[in-house]
């Protein structure tokens, strides 16, 4: 779920007509000073990170003067809190608080509707209060087609024990909160505390919105980098992976790193799962063997071979791995040879040395295993392919045994290199890449097997050379499914005339940095 920072959430509330404290975001102590001067009264400084309990770690402090604010800001910026380094702080007027409430919204999976929650007690410890004093909490499901009507909000507030002007004020906040949440596709929204000040005004003193990952595309203005559930800012490699996924709607590619730094001595392996349930089962199997996972990765939902290729390239951009473990449910409905081809291209390009155990059970598993067995003979790594009747436990054990054969071997990240391409080559674009065919080399080809290997039948022979059977435009729009079969056939059975370029923006630079760092170690 895509989380917004407090300052972002508050901006949306303000646009929705909910009162928020005066203030601004500072990235430097000087900015904090300026904002405090503008406010002209005591301020509160709050670190902008995705954790609760900021006050307990010194992440929320008050300042009487702008100079004091500057000094506190200097301490706060750069502070390490859990997985975060503080880069921004919110500087706001200090409110004179009379009472604190809680207002929130979640999606209720049982009723399949948004659920509004109001509590007459707010602030820290709200969960404990909810448990010990359930009577202080009132809830109401919202009809998603008709929205929240003002009278419904008023009734909810009334049930929480309010009346008169305050009831109307609070109900107004609730209806506006619902509108903001719905218009921004919020999975959850909460104002905690919602405060009543000494001059009887209602303010949202803190707010967190979480946007539905699947609807982030509707809200480009929010600038969400990765629409995935993260409890920390994404790493550079995760950003690269996400961008690689973004342009390709076929299947899912999910990647995150499980450690900040992969060190040589720690038994890290690269993990490549398929499907949530099967991945979890497979992770358990390798964890039981004492391995640690450098990353979690899932390519499923019938991904293209090109997507699986990119996933493998990204996994192999992590240094010091002892092995590569790929395993899903074992009885996949997707055509498993796509995954096999994606890995074959990636492992060959990387000249992979570390052992791999690839469990591709399911639809077309025999073909998938055959592809792994036939086309990974030229690399130093031992890679074994398994199917649905080989359990994850057995496969994890195989990986352990292969790693033990050469314990000192760890993965070295290579610079991203491409073969030199003859500019005279025949070339055409595909959905996410480009295919180059060196017709000079085709002269020596006897079988012309690439035409047959292409399951989408986009190639035909013209003067004994493979050319497109469709227009360039149709090919780019998806006639070519990027199954990679032509390149693999040509590389292993013929003249190495075909190269499929599948760019991964940012990966080259990332690898160069990684290599530099590991040389410095």
């Amino acid at each position, binding site marked *: 779920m895509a989380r917004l920072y407090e300052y972002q959430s508050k901006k949306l509330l303000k646009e929705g007509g909910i009162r928020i404290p005066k203030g601004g975001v500072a990235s430097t102590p000087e900015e904090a000073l300026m904002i405090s001067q503008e406010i002209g009264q005591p301020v509160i400084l709050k670190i902008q990170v995705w954790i609760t309990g900021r006050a307990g770690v010194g992440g929320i402090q008050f300042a009487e003067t702008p100079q004091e604010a500057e000094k506190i800001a200097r301490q706060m910026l750069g502070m390490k809190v859990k997985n975060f380094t503080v880069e921004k702080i919110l500087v706001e007027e200090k409110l004179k608080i009379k009472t604190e409430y809680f207002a929130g919204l*979640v999606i209720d999976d049982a009723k399949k509707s948004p*659920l509004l929650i109001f509590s007459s007690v707010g602030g820290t410890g709200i969960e404990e209060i909810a448990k010990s004093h359930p009577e202080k909490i009132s809830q109401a499901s919202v009809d998603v087609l008709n929205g929240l009507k003002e009278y419904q909000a008023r009734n909810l507030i009334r049930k929480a024990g309010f009346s008169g002007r305050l009831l109307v004020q609070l109900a107004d906040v609730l209806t506006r909160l619902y509108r903001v949440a719905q218009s921004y596709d919020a999975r959850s929204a909460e104002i905690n505390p919602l405060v009543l000040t000494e001059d009887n005004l209602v303010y949202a003193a803190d707010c967190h919105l979480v946007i539905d990952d699947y609807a982030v595309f509707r809200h480009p203005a929010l600038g969400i980098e990765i629409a995935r559930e993260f409890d920390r800012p994404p790493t550079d490699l995760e950003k690269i992976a996400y961008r690689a996924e973004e342009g390709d709607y076929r299947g899912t590619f999910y990647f995150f790193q499980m450690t900040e730094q992969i060190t040589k001595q720690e038994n890290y392996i690269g993990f490549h799962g398929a499907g949530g349930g099967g991945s979890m089962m497979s992770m358990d199997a390798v964890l039981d063997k004492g391995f640690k996972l450098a990353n979690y990765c899932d390519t499923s939902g*019938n991904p293209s071979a090109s997507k699986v290729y990119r996933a493998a390239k990204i996994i192999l951009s992590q240094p010091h791995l002892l092995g590569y473990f790929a395993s899903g*449910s074992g009885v996949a*409905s997707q055509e498993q040879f796509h995954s096999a081809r994606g890995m074959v291209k990636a492992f060959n390009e990387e000249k992979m040395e570390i052992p791999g155990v690839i469990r591709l059970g399911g639809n077309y598993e025999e073909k998938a295993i055959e592809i792994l067995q036939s086309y990974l003979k030229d690399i130093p790594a031992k890679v074994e392919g398994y199917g649905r009747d080989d359990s994850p436990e057995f496969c994890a054990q195989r990986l352990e045994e292969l790693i033990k054969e050469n314990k000192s071997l760890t993965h070295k990240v290579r610079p991203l290199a491409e073969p030199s391409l003859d500019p005279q080559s025949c070339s055409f674009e595909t959905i996410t890449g480009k295919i180059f065919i060196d017709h000079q080399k085709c002269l020596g080809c006897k079988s012309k097997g690439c035409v047959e290997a292409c399951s989408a039948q986009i190639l035909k022979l013209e003067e004994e050379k493979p050319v497109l059977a469709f227009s360039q435009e149709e090919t780019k729009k998806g006639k070519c499914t990027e199954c990679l079969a032509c390149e693999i056939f040509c590389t292993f059975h013929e003249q190495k005339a075909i190269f499929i370029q599948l760019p991964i923006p940012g990966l080259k630079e990332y690898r160069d940095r990684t290599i530099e760092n590991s040389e410095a170690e």
Partner: protein
Amino acid sequence: MAILVNQESRVLVQGITGREGMVRTRLMKDYGTRIIAGVTPGRGGQEVYGIPVFDSVEEAWEKTGPLDISVIFVPATLVKNAALEALEAGVKLLVVIPDRVPIYDVLEINHFARQRGAFFVGPNTLGLVSPGKAVLGMIGGRAERAREWFRPGEVGVSSRSGGMTSAISYYLTEAGLGQSTIIHVGGDAVVGLSHPEIVELFEKDEQTKIVVMFGEIGTTQEERVADLIEESRFTKPLVAYIGGKAAKSGTRFSHAGAIVEGRRGSYESKVERLKEVGVHVVPAISDIPKKALELMEKSKE
């Protein structure tokens, strides 16, 4: 008998001319599902594997007669529109295959379906299969595989993980236990027919003698199944496995969920609650066939 779909069901495919739509139409048709028509706006008049394609659901209905089920393969952003179109035309069961459907769209589809007395499976589902009768969606991949992996029988299977739906069913087949209906309820936080609704359908199905459920952390589905058992609304033997024990719970961010759900949703809560009402919760996937066999024997005594 089986639930939700059988060899009589008249099925429509929305998005039939797309990549997935075409491949899975082939699977469904080859397996024996009665695919009556397909819809892709702008492609009316074409055919896919001999199935006529229409520009709208209404047109398909007018020209081919009433349709019981629609299987939806359109891109996620267009799912809501396709679903509402099918519901408005009168279809009573939707199978929503795509992943990444916005949650508020799902809520709207649900609301609309309820008003019309209709139901939906998914989104983010592999689909369902009543072995020997019909398959909806992409489960099995090819008819040949679906016939090999899934056999007619008396175990109902409901799962929140796509891959594990097939895996569990395959293990049951290997153990000599056939299945009545196998359903992947979908992997999202809000789905149409969820575990509790599915077990209630299995309760009424004569063919189903026992049920196997693959649960996962998150949502309240498994706890609600326990509630049904407590209220005697589900009385058949149930084998359950809950995935996600090892999942590291993230840094908590929102209080709102915790206020509403309390501990519900966690691995411990689900296992405890299910055990409390007598469900056979197994610690490993590989224990499922053994336990199912044992319960099946007992049910015959």
